[in-house]
């Protein structure tokens, strides 16, 4: 039985009818059509589906869409609007932290959430913050470099 729900994604309200067993990940990608958030393990083990809910990184594959109402959801498409990239996005590009790019959206959001909370993290804190985002291409080296570089630029 489909349920009418309202989701606030990247500051915009979307209304759609979904079955209770649909995850937030499925609704973001299929109903709303934002495919930047990736579907991979569907078990909360890889972080490719990471979005921010009320500023906190969560696995959208383990979140039921019907339970995500009334919250502020941020996907990768919600960053870098009006022609300006978020410092983390800019740093990822400048430091070669992106290879195949599949893990990138989730990683950028985890990094943004970290810097919002802890603007000057240590390398150990960066590693910990991204420990729930798996990457096979980069070995994480330049990702960590990019996040630390972005933290130096942020200073807001």
């Amino acid at each position, binding site marked *: 039985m489909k349920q009418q729900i309202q989701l606030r994604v990247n500051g915009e309200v979307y209304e759609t009818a979904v079955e209770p067993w649909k995850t937030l990940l499925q609704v973001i990608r299929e109903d709303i059509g934002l*495919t930047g958030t990736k579907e991979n393990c569907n078990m909360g083990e890889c972080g490719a589906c990471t979005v921010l809910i009320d500023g906190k990184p969560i696995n959208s594959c383990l979140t039921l869409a019907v339970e995500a109402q009334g919250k502020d959801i941020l*996907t990768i498409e919600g960053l870098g609007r009006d022609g300006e*990239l978020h410092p983390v996005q800019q740093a990822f590009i400048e430091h070669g932290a*992106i290879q*195949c*790019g*599949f893990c990138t959206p989730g990683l950028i959001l985890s990094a943004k959430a970290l810097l919002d909370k802890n603007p000057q993290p240590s390398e150990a804190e960066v590693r910990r913050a991204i*420990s729930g985002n798996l990457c096979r291409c980069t070995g994480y080296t330049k990702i*960590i470099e990019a996040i630390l570089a972005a933290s130096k630029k942020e200073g807001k």
Partner: protein
Amino acid sequence: MQDYTLIGKRVPRTDSLAKAIGSAKYVGDIVLPRMLYGKILRSPHPHAKILNIDTSKAEALPGVRAVVTGKDSSGLPYGVSSTKLDQYFLCSDGVTRFVGDEVAAVAAEDEDIADEALNLIDVEYEVLPAVFDPLKAMEEGAPQIHDSAQRNIGARAFTHSGNVDEGFKHSDYVYEDRFTCDRISHVQMEPYGALASYDSTGKLDMWIPSSCFFIKRTALSYLLKIPLKNVRLNECYIGGHFGGRTDTQAAEFCAALLSIKAGRPVRITYSREETMAAAKQKISSVIDLKMGAKKDGTLVAENARLIMDGGAFGSSWIFQIWVPYWYSEARYYIPNHKYEALRIYTNKTSCSMQRYHGDQLLYAEEHMLDKIAKDLGINPVEIRLKNARKAGDVLHSKSKITSFALSETIEKAAAASGWKEKRGKLPKGHGIGLACGVGAAGFYMGFRMNATAIIKFNEDGSATLFTGVVDVGAGNHSMMAQVAAEELGILMSDIALVCSNPELCPPAPGAYSMFAAFTSAEAVRRAAVDARQQITRIAAAMLDVEPSSLELKDRRVYVRANPERWIPLATVIRRAYRVGNGIVGRGSCTPAAMSEAGWADPLREKPEGQLMATYTDGTTVAEVEVDEETGKVKVNNMWLAWDCGKAINPMAVEGQWEGATVTALGETLLEKHEWDEKTGELVTASFLDYKIPTALDTPNITPIIVETIDPEGPYGAKEAGLNASTGVRGAIANAIYDAIGVQIKENPITPEVILKALAEKSEIKRVKTGQ
């Protein structure tokens, strides 16, 4: 050292922006109008005959639009090489050969209905005995997996140079032992899948995360009996390959068949478990290794015998059985060298190309070499310098090494890591070890080795570059733009890239066999140079000078000796259309002197000729800390010095090597596939059980680029892919040896393996001791 504007500079990649903002579309992101969702029904048995498939209930389920089985396929067998066609998609030969083998497929209006439909397909199996262990599979009376393979031996490589028996007689010290390296997965982050859209005019559009669009098009055309030009593989973003996405797989085959039957687009996206269990894996090896040396450390003889578990199908068996030897012979000079590799069929997931073939054998040799060094009282660095191959060497296979710098990489890696200060002086439980690796650009692939590129221009001076190269994530597309921009004196952002699609682009090998730089980038360079020559001819007439006196830079054509005289490139482009044929640059490249000899008869013993286009080489150093009570190994630092010829984009090169090093570290310490002995099911099919390194598991990695400027590669570039990690296993094992005095003969090196080695005081066996 030549000074370039863009080559050799750390430039951001052209594809990074789309990926950073989430607009890059991978196959699973693409939605077409009226698209259906496909699912594959997989065999629950490791070995069985299919007696009957009843799809009627599934077909009757509302929302199901097509169901296909082996009956719907052409029945043609598939193989990566036409010399071994042993795979029948949808088990059209009536046999399933591993748990996960595809038996039927459905397409429905949504995925929930497709899931339900799978449940409604009734398959009647006659279960056959299965075999999972390659050594057992070779025994008399073992279940036969393919009619053509006696004792399940699918392929054999054999070569013998010199005389190893004599060699061991003349060796002062001889060592012999067995090493086992377990099965692993590539673990591309993007789950596998395919999107097919067949229209009734006979055209099949496909989107597949493939490393090689041209080869795949040929395979699909053959399997589906659709003319080559009607099979259109569209460019899409790809989430990793690492050797596992060259083979044609069930996803694209089934998606195509379903689309043809339903008359609508069909997208199949594998789950992560399907990607682990039913896509491709990497072989495991049992290696029996014997090495002999003189007491001054000179290597005299080696006899290596590898039993490789290849799984249910042959895949790229030629590379799998031969490349370990071709890398090994290019690393140290061993006058008497015997090698045999058998690739065995088992009822498990089949194994494809690996990003760095042969790292398992290279590890065994490197670990044994450290034991030799220890017994002879020779520093591990010295023993390697003593035996290292050099530029100009002609190998046993008669392949010639042109540019090479193994010795230099040994010295650079040792220096950067502080080897002298640390070796033998680290605190208890800490160790430092090194190992050398070898790679190469390119296997012989006949006409497929050719890469061709075309550049055309817009009236504002910007350009479009057409190249068949594929970017699976490593940065190949950006590299092409970088090369073209360098030669044409324009910005990388002035170039639009049209890549990979065989309908639009001239051919290229794609993103495998390490040819992207060596052939594709070289073809682009030649195309840009060709365009530049056409441009300077037109401009010379306009400026009334000789064409050779002109330079292209900053979107201008200017007189070198008198830079105030220049015209905009845009003006020349427009002029060219007025006075002649316009400017269209064309370049093509096939590696010179590559020999067919190795491939003419894949069953031939001792193939000879130039078997690789050119060789790369390097050294890895690892610093580890071992907790002798828990057995946990922590790798704190790694250094990697690799000769890539020339780093076209050093930032991209470093990224490749860092990634390769971490993956190899994962395979050495953490990753292992396990099968249920009784059911043949893959037990480690999820990220929970098959663990790849997270950001908390990786060391500091220092990549050191060594440039030998290859005579043939573009700007001297050879390859900068994943061969750089061929030394990682050995370096970690050797560092553990230094830390706790025991040697490890099985990979992955889990804590329990460490504790076992400590309890047994394990070291590689010496069978002959000199005076």
